[in-house]
């Protein structure tokens, strides 16, 4: 026990002097994307992920949603513990809370998933949510940055949502419920990888029972946004 305590203390203490500096400091990163969806919808979408942690273990906060007509149409926030388990993948587990303005549309969930880089440099975030009333939801997001030049970046993004059961209250059908594809053309001025304004197009497809229950525009929509990290 003493040894465990000692090693814990040692791992917390500043690094050994000969190492010159700590090679595994606590760091934080915030990645934010804000998108304005064309005039007709007049909606603002946000997708903000942030982490605080070290090489192997990190705490994440992820939030995304849509804001229109002075209220949050839909949205959630997740608190996630993440642990690296292979060169390219992290296991993640946490809790999610829905934050739509219409409070009867909100549920709390626990999440299990993985995040990382698949072959061909697809950044993938896949997670399974287990919610109240034995509901469940699977969300898989994948995107890839294609460098057209050192400044112009094309980013295709593909999201799918599937639900465990049909629910009238939450307007969702079981099985594959929706898919969204976006294509964004961003510009990194002077090769600055930290900030990227972009223009995009996006389209949603609805499937199964969700098709009948949700009133959602499934045509192509134009978007204008910024993406940045610090």
């Amino acid at each position, binding site marked *: 026990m003493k040894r465990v305590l000692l090693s814990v203390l040692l791992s917390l203490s500043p690094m050994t002097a000969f190492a*010159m500096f700590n090679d595994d400091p606590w760091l934080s990163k915030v990645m934010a994307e804000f998108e304005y969806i064309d005039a007709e919808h007049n909606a603002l979408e946000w997708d903000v992920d942030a982490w605080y942690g070290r090489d192997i273990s990190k705490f994440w906060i992820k939030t995304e949603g849509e804001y229109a007509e002075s209220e949050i149409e839909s949205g959630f926030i997740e608190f996630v513990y993440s642990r690296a388990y292979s060169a390219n993948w992290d296991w993640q587990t946490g809790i999610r809370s829905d934050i739509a303005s219409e409070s009867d549309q909100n549920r709390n969930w626990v999440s299990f998933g993985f995040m990382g880089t698949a*072959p061909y440099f697809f950044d993938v975030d896949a997670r399974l949510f287990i919610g109240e009333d034995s509901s469940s939801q699977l969300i898989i997001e994948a995107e890839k940055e294609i460098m*057209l030049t050192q400044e112009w970046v094309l980013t295709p993004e593909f999201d799918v949502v599937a639900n465990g059961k049909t629910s009238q209250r939450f307007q969702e059908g079981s099985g594959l419920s929706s898919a969204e594809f976006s294509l964004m053309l961003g510009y990194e001025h002077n090769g600055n990888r930290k900030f990227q304004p972009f223009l995009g197009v996006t389209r949603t497809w609805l499937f199964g029972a969700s098709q009948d229950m949700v009133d959602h525009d499934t045509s192509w929509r134009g978007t204008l946004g910024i993406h940045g990290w610090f």
Partner: protein
Amino acid sequence: MNSHYPLTRRQFVTGVGAAGVLAFGNSATATESFGPKELSGRYFELNIGYLPVNFTGKDRTATAINGSIPAPTLRWKEGEEVTIKVTNHLAEDTSIHWHGIILPSNMDGVPGLSFGGIKPGESFTYRFTVNQSGTYWYHSHSGFQEPLGMYGAIIVDPIEAHETVERDYVLTLSDWSDEKPESIFANLKKYPHIYNIDERTLNDFMRDSKRHGFSKAFAERIMWNQMRMSDSDISDVTGKTYTFLLNGKPPANHWQALFKKGERVRLRFINAASMTFFDVRIPGVKMTVVAADGQAIEPVTVDEFRIAAAETYDVIVQPSAEQAHAVFCQAIDRSGYAVCSLTPQRNLPIELPELDASPILGHIDMGMNHLPVNADAGHDQHGMNHGGQTSQKDNDDEDGCTEEHAAMGHCVMPQKPSNNGCTAEHAAMGHCVMPNSEHRQMGSGSAGYGSSKAVSFDHIKMGPHIDMLAESPQYRLDDPGVGLRNNGRRVLTYADLINRNETLDPREPSRELELHLTGNMSRYMWSIDGIKGMKADPIKMKFGERLRITFVNNTMMNHPMHLHGLWSELETGEPNRIPRKHTTIVQPGSRLSYLVTADALGKWAFHCHLTYHMPSMFRVVEVS
């Protein structure tokens, strides 16, 4: 307590932030400039303090020795005892390490190993006898003080000189960033390719398709994409944030070395950069390399050489006096250059060559000996035009050989034939011709020839911190390295290094230590054998023993490995004339061996000399 000494004699080191004044290919005029002060004798006083600097147009605070960057050149005499009193005027601990000097462990200047470091306001007096001659350097071994300006040259004059020259100059290369080193490190952890301004683009792919056919180009992309790696990943930190300095001067305001007609000039190159490898040449002037890491070698005349962080090379030149010559030192990734002029008259303009095309890693750099895809899918290494750089002329059109072909052993190299295509097993069975020596085959495994063992990966601790293993790492002593292969110039390689003196310890190594350089670029984690410095047990050596250290580089980066206190005797196939180094480039995907005689008691640092790899790719060597 903290008197911040240099601030009282405020001195601005200015670099003239006139970016763009020096257009590529244009001639440039330099303002009058002098090198760092030279201090000689047996007693020295060094004061470490903060120094306001401006290399790029922005005011920054550096850490400096005696208020100068580079620090004063220390001129010692072989056989003499020197005493150096170092006083710390910083608000944090400091230290000075005498890089490449063989001395007692308690004088080596590594806090936590040699001594406790020098506290703010305190002094430490180093005293040791100098038993070697040549070009070395000194730098801080604390925090990020070295990248912030704490480096200077050491010249040890020999008792008996090998070469007589009319002029003798120190050329110290370095890289300066206006970003704080802590921020650079954090950026690398968060977004490892942030400084890469030569990312593979769709444009490159189109060009490759045009040149090599769509299917070949596509297959090549598939391979790299499947591996989730980038073949344009040459330097972690680049000219995007660095201004490259030569004797503390940026290109826009370069330093000048004067000479007169007919004079032989000795240039002592020291790479004091924190992260940059430089490829050095003087267009139109042949360089005769006479010393590597301070140690005399058999003279070899070349057009170009690569110098890793912490290496030193002495070259002798005899330039024509009709014009000023550019000493052109391009960063390995071609994201910039340092330059000075070698001129018969002050302020003559120099003709700057264009930067070479950005290098592309080949399969050999991944330690592969066969291809998962189309074997001759070659990259278009030439004819690229990134970020305003103009590419050099198409060499591959002349002989139909791309850099990658060369790496694959498909072309005749400008130097000696390579042993590429030889697996470790083959080598172990003595089936391969090893570089630089006909009798290499016979000697394989014995002192001077490198290891005869098959590479073993069993002892590597695998995990999220490792993204690749080199499946078939080769000895590549005669490989000038990525970006220099088959460039039409005679480039120095390690196979060229032959000690001018006889090997002092002719014993066979009694054992071999195989060390794997490992890492995960996408998490920016580095290690040796999958274990990082702080978590590793010391490497124990028995006093007096002769052993072999064999490196296997399982990463895509070049790593300059530096062993303190003991010579690294590089096995280049000349057992009686083994060259001695203190810092050795282990090329990506390669294998390299050197012999060590553990003749100095104590604890020694052993690490990659790239600043942001150092604490992880680190071992303590304990000789007892």
